[in-house]
């Protein structure tokens, strides 16, 4: 049961609440929203460690790695120009789209760097992305084998499947992407009752009772007054920010924010200023400047200042500095928009997200946004906040007015996932998964660090980017891991800075220790074979800690 895990560091107020009431009832009431208790961040009841955030690590690689990366890109770009020349002369057939003869005198369509990059760099290693999956994306999955005869321009499926590939790329943090019949009984029930299609928008005839039920559950889960759910996570950001801010407002957004936030900010028409990633001095400087100078020409004060940050940044794995941002927000009277797409369900002792992780009252965040795609195994997003805010969004959001409401089976999946995590369904399965995820994260990150890889991000974040840097190694890494039956996601240039290509692992609660050990062993061998262990902080080689006990004296 939840109360018996003394050693698990949690926010002190939760524990004291457990002492008073039954453990099962704890989830029905959110004990840590008594305002006076929550501010005692870190001053636990004496037997809990203070909630130390842990530093994000962004270790830099040695200089020769940057030099070799640029050299590698330079050589491949040279060959790109060479091949373009061959295609222009006509010695080689152009497989990609080309302009027709009549269009050749007009402005060229395919000459910009993006098309050049796609033709000459991306196509060569394209077989590492868009691999067709033919099972559910659980901890292991099946891939369809495909080969290419003409160097990745076209693929054909051989008909064989690669089975039981360990899945290190799906956003399946709590393992809710499952097809266990017992767990999905309620989902089947709801499908029988409501059907699958909604056939209307929320404002017209699409407001089902199950939607209202979902929103009540989400609000209770987060500890906020009210919440509203939307059908698509990306659309939640891009369609609701324009409803909240407009011209004459200022948006201060982090450097590494997701495209949906940037799109929403641009659509709104507000002025956007960017501060350096997780850098509180940069943010404070911008805030001071905004308040002192006001709007650009008229120097009137800004109507609203909105700080947009994410809970966990998906490419870096770093956590937001929430307590500092809340202090700044209060000092300068700004509003905070927190996008918990990756962190809801994945951090925090009971899976409530970064607000719980830092021991901060969620009501201090003005707009709490999140998605159901990652930890809940469904689709869609939500916005939670004060009742007035959410009621305003219900009437004025583009997504509510024009987008179809969520499909009932998906809604039921989210409801059952929330009930599972809160423990309302009578089992401890949810809490077990949250704890398992934290344990898996800690284990994987510490072992990767010990092996000597450069891993970015905070030690508590389940998103683990492993840096590869060189363009040649990116393709080689992904293919070699597939040969060893492990599926990874590698990310290269447009999504990351050009020198920092990486492989991104997403730890899941459904991964067992054996799977993680297999992955770690493969990474160890592959890291030595390909030479991607760039870290200079590597500890000396130690014997296997969890595994066979070799009492050999040479280690």
């Amino acid at each position, binding site marked *: 049961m939840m109360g018996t895990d003394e050693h698990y560091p949690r926010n002190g107020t939760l524990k004291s609440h457990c002492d008073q009431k039954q453990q099962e009832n704890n989830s029905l009431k959110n004990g840590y929203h008594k305002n006076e208790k929550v501010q005692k961040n870190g001053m636990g009841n004496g037997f809990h460690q203070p909630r130390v955030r842990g530093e994000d690590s962004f270790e830099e690689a040695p200089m020769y790695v940057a030099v070799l990366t640029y050299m*590698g890109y330079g050589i491949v770009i040279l060959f790109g120009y060479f091949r373009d020349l061959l295609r222009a002369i006509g010695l080689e057939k152009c497989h990609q789209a080309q302009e027709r003869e009549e269009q050749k005198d007009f402005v060229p369509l395919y000459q910009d760097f993006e098309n050049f990059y796609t033709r000459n760099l991306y196509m060569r290693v394209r077989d590492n992305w868009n691999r067709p999956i033919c099972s559910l994306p659980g901890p292991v999955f099946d891939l369809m084998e495909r080969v290419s005869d003409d160097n990745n321009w076209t693929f054909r499926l051989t008909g064989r499947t690669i089975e039981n590939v360990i899945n290190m790329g799906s956003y399946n943090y709590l393992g809710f992407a499952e097809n266990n019949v017992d767990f999905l009984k309620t989902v089947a029930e709801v499908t029988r009752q409501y059907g699958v299609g909604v056939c209307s928008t929320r404002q017209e005839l699409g407001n089902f009772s199950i939607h209202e039920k979902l929103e009540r559950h989400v609000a209770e889960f987060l500890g906020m007054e009210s919440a509203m759910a939307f059908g698509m996570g990306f659309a939640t950001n891009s369609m609701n920010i324009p409803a909240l801010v407009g011209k004459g407002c200022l948006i201060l957004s982090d450097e590494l924010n997701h495209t949906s936030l940037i799109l929403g900010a641009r659509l709104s028409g507000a002025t956007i200023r960017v501060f350096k990633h997780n850098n509180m001095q940069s943010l404070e400087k911008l805030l001071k400047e905004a308040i002192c100078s006001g709007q650009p020409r008229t120097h009137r004060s800004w109507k609203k200042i909105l700080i947009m940050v994410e809970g966990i940044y998906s490419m870096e794995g770093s956590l937001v500095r929430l307590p500092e941002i809340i202090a700044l927000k209060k000092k300068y009277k700004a509003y905070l928009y927190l996008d918990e797409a990756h962190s809801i369900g994945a951090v925090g002792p009971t899976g409530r997200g970064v607000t719980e992780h830092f021991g901060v009252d969620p009501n201090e965040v003005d707009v709490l946004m999140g998605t159901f795609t990652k930890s809940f195994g469904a689709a869609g997003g939500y916005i939670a906040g004060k009742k007035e805010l959410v009621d305003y969004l219900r009437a004025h959001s583009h997504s509510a007015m024009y987008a179809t409401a969520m499909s009932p089976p998906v809604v039921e999946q989210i409801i059952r996932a929330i009930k599972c995590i809160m423990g309302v369904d009578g089992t401890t399965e949810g809490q077990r998964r949250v704890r398992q995820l934290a344990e898996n994260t800690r284990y994987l990150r510490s072992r990767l660090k010990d092996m000597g890889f450069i891993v970015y991000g905070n030690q508590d974040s389940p998103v683990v980017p492993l840096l590869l840097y*060189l363009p040649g190694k990116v393709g080689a890494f992904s293919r070699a891991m597939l040969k060893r039956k492990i599926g990874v996601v590698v990310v290269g240039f447009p999504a990351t800075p050009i020198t920092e290509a990486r492989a991104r692992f997403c730890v899941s609660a459904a991964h067992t220790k054996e799977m993680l050990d297999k992955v770690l062993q493969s990474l160890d061998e592959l890291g030595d074979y390909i*030479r991607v262990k760039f870290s200079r902080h590597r500890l000396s080689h130690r014997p296997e800690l969890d595994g066979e006990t070799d009492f050999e004296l040479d280690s």
Partner: protein
Amino acid sequence: MEMKKMRENLGWLYYQYLLITGIYVLEPWEQSVFNTVLFTTVAMVIYTSYVFVPVHVRLALEFFSELVREQPESTVALMN
């Protein structure tokens, strides 16, 4: 057995070369083109250094040793 290990080692070194220069992503004929060009350039560099470096080094040494030797006799050289 040692031949096999050596060949494996060489294979691994070639693989590293492919990865580091980024040639790994190119098609085989492009790899051959690059290897040919690189090999030719390196061969020319080696040949040039073989032919010219001893001569240059000898001349440089002579120049510097003359400087050192000439110091006490510099007044003599001027008057000549």
